[in-house]
C-alpha cells in the first residue's frame, strides 16, 4: 500500500457513508461525478494500457443501457438486467472487434465514433427502443441511493483493476504492446488477443455503466445515451490525465463535473460556450496532462 492508496481508500469509504448525510442536490452531483469517472476508467483500460482511443466507446454504454431498460421494463430483476446489459455489450464488442480492431489511431477513433452514431440512428428508428420517444420506467423507492451505490461499486472495481494492471506483469505486457508492437510480437506476446480482451472488458464495464445510468436517469432515449458530448468529456479527462493514469481520471472527473455544474447553474445561456473555451484552454496549456507528482 502506498500513501496515495491509503488516502484514496479513505476517500472512497467517506463516499460510502456520505449519501446518508447530504441533501438530494449534492447526492445527484456526486453521482454525476462518479458516473463520469466510471466512463473514463472504462475507456482508460484500452486507451492508457494499449494506446487505442475508442472515441465512440459510448456506443457500448448506450447498447448496455438499452438492453437494461428493455429487460427491466419487462420485469426482470434489477441486478440480473444490469448484468445482462454488461454481457450484451460484451457480445456486441465480440462481434464488432474483428472489424474495428484492424484499424489504428485516428482511423480507429473515428470508426468507433461512426459506430456510435450508427447505433444512435438505429435506436431512433427502431420500434423496440421506443424510437425518438425513448423508454421511461417506474422506479422503486430509494432509487437514487441504489444508483449511487451501484456506481460506486463499479468505480471501485474499475479502480482496483486499473491499479492492478498498473503494477502487474499483465499491465506491463499491455504497455509493451502499446510502446512497440513489433518488438512485443517478436518476444511472443499475442498482441491481437490482449487488445481484443481489453476491448471486450471495456465494453462490458461500459455496458454496466449504461445500465446503472438508465436506472439513475429514469428515462432513456437515443440522443441522451449516444450523445457525442459524453465521448468528448471522457477523452478530455483522459487527455488531461495522461501523466497520471491511475488517479487522474478520478481527480479530473471531479474537477470537471464541478466546473460543468458551476457553468450550468450560473451562466445558463453561456454554459456551452464557456465549456468549449475551458476545453480549448486546458488542452492548450496542459498538452501532456498535469503532473501531480514531484520530480
Amino acid at each position, binding site marked *: 500500500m502506498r500513501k496515495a492508496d491509503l488516502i484514496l481508500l479513505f476517500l472512497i469509504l467517506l463516499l460510502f457513508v456520505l449519501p446518508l448525510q447530504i441533501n438530494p442536490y449534492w447526492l445527484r452531483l456526486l453521482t454525476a461525478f462518479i458516473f463520469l469517472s466510471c466512463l473514463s476508467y472504462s475507456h482508460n483500460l484500452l486507451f492508457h494500457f494499449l494506446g487505442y*482511443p475508442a*472515441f465512440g466507446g459510448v456506443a457500448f454504454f448506450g447498447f448496455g443501457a438499452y438492453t437494461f431498460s428493455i429487460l427491466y421494463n419487462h420485469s426482470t430483476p434489477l441486478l440480473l438486467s444490469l448484468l445482462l446489459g454488461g454481457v450484451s455489450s460484451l457480445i456486441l464488442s465480440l462481434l464488432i472487434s474483428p*472489424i474495428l480492431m*484492424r*484499424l*489504428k*489511431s*485516428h*482511423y480507429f*477513433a*473515428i*470508426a468507433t*465514433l*461512426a*459506430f456510435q*452514431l*450508427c447505433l444512435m*440512428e*438505429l435506436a*431512433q*428508428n427502431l420500434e423496440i427502443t421506443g424510437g425518438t420517444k425513448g423508454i421511461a420506467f417506474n422506479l422503486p423507492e430509494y432509487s437514487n441511493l441504489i444508483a449511487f451505490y451501484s456506481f460506486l461499486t463499479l468505480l471501485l472495481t474499475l479502480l482496483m483493476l486499473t491499479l492492478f494492471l498498473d503494477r502487474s506483469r499483465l499491465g506491463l505486457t499491455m504497455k509493451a504492446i502499446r510502446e512497440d508492437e513489433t518488438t512485443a510480437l517478436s518476444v511472443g506476446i499475442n498482441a491481437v488477443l490482449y487488445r481484443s480482451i481489453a476491448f471486450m472488458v471495456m465494453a462490458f464495464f461500459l455496458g454496466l455503466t449504461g445500465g446503472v445510468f438508465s436506472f439513475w436517469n429514469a428515462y432513456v432515449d437515443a440522443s441522451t445515451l449516444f450523445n*457525442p458530448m459524453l465521448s*468528448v468529456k471522457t*477523452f*478530455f479527462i483522459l*487527455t488531461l490525465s*495522461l501523466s497520471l493514469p491511475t488517479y487522474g481520471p478520478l481527480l479530473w472527473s471531479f474537477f470537471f463535473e464541478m466546473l460543468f455544474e458551476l457553468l450550468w447553474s450560473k451562466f445558463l*445561456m*453561456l454554459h*456551452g*460556450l464557456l*465549456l*468549449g*473555451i475551458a*476545453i*480549448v484552454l486546458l*488542452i*492548450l496549456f496542459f*498538452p*501532456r496532462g498535469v503532473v501531480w507528482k514531484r520530480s
Partner: protein
Amino acid sequence: MEIVFQLLLDALLLSGFYTVLSVGFSLMWGVTGIINLAYGSFIILGAYLSYMIYMAGFDVLLFLPLIFILGFLLGLFFQALFVNRLMGYEPFTILVLTFGFDVVITNLLNLIFKADIRSISLPFENFSLFIADLILPLNRLLVFFFSLISLFALYTFLRYSWTGRAIRAVSLDPVGAQLCGIKPKRVFMISTGIAIGLALFSGGFYAMLQGFTPFESGWLTIRAFLICVIAGLGSVSGLAFGSFILSLFEVFSGFYLGEDWKDVVSLMLLIAFLTIRPRGLFGIRYHEKG
C-alpha cells in the same frame, strides 16, 4: 425506370457540393495529419456569414471569394495560435482541441442567431430546367457549376504554383521537404488557411442548397471524413469520385428506404470502407502522422 435517371442526376449535382465540402478537410488531413473535428462548424459559420450578407441585401455569389479570404485568415490564426503549439504532442490532444473549437463555434452561433432554421432564397430559386422528363433545379445546377470552377482553381494551384508544390512536398515527405528549404510550419499554416477558407466557402453553397441551424456541424464533419475515407488522401479527382459514391448512396437510400435511414446507410458505408480498404480507393497510403 425514369426515376432512376432522375436520382442519378440528383446524385451527380450533389456530388459537386460534397467535393468542395470535403476537399479542405482532405487537404488539412493530408498535409498536417490533423483530423479537424471543427471543420463542420466552420462550414456552418460560412453558411451564417452568407446569411448575413444575404440579409444585408447583397448578392451572396459575388461575396463568396471574400468569404474564402476571411476563412483563409481565420485558418492562418487557428493554425499559428493553437494547433502549431500542440503539433509535437500526443496526436489525440489535437483531436480534443478541435472538438473544443467545434463546441465554441456552435454555441457562439447559437447565441447570436438562435436555433431557428435559416435559409437563403435566391432570386431564381423556384426555376428549374426540364430536359426530357428530368428536372434540374437551378440553384443546384449553379452550385454544381461553381463547385467545378473552384475545384479546378484549387487543382491548378496545387499542381503548378510554387506554394502548391511545396504543400504537396510536405504532404509526401515532411523531412525531405524540410531538407529542400521548405518550412513545414509555414506550409501547415497555409494549408490550414486554405482548408478553413474552403470550409467557409462551401458553407455559402450549403446555405443556398438547404436550410440550416447551428447544430449540424457533426454530420458535416462525418460526411467530409467519409468522403476522404472512400477516396483516400492526396487526389482531388479521387475526392470527386468518392463524393459521387457517397451522394449515390445517400440519394438512393433516401428515396427507397426513407430519409431516416440515409444516415445509417452512410455510416455503414464508412465502417465497411474502413474495414476493407482503409487507405481509400485512390489513396497513396494508410499512414499515421504526428
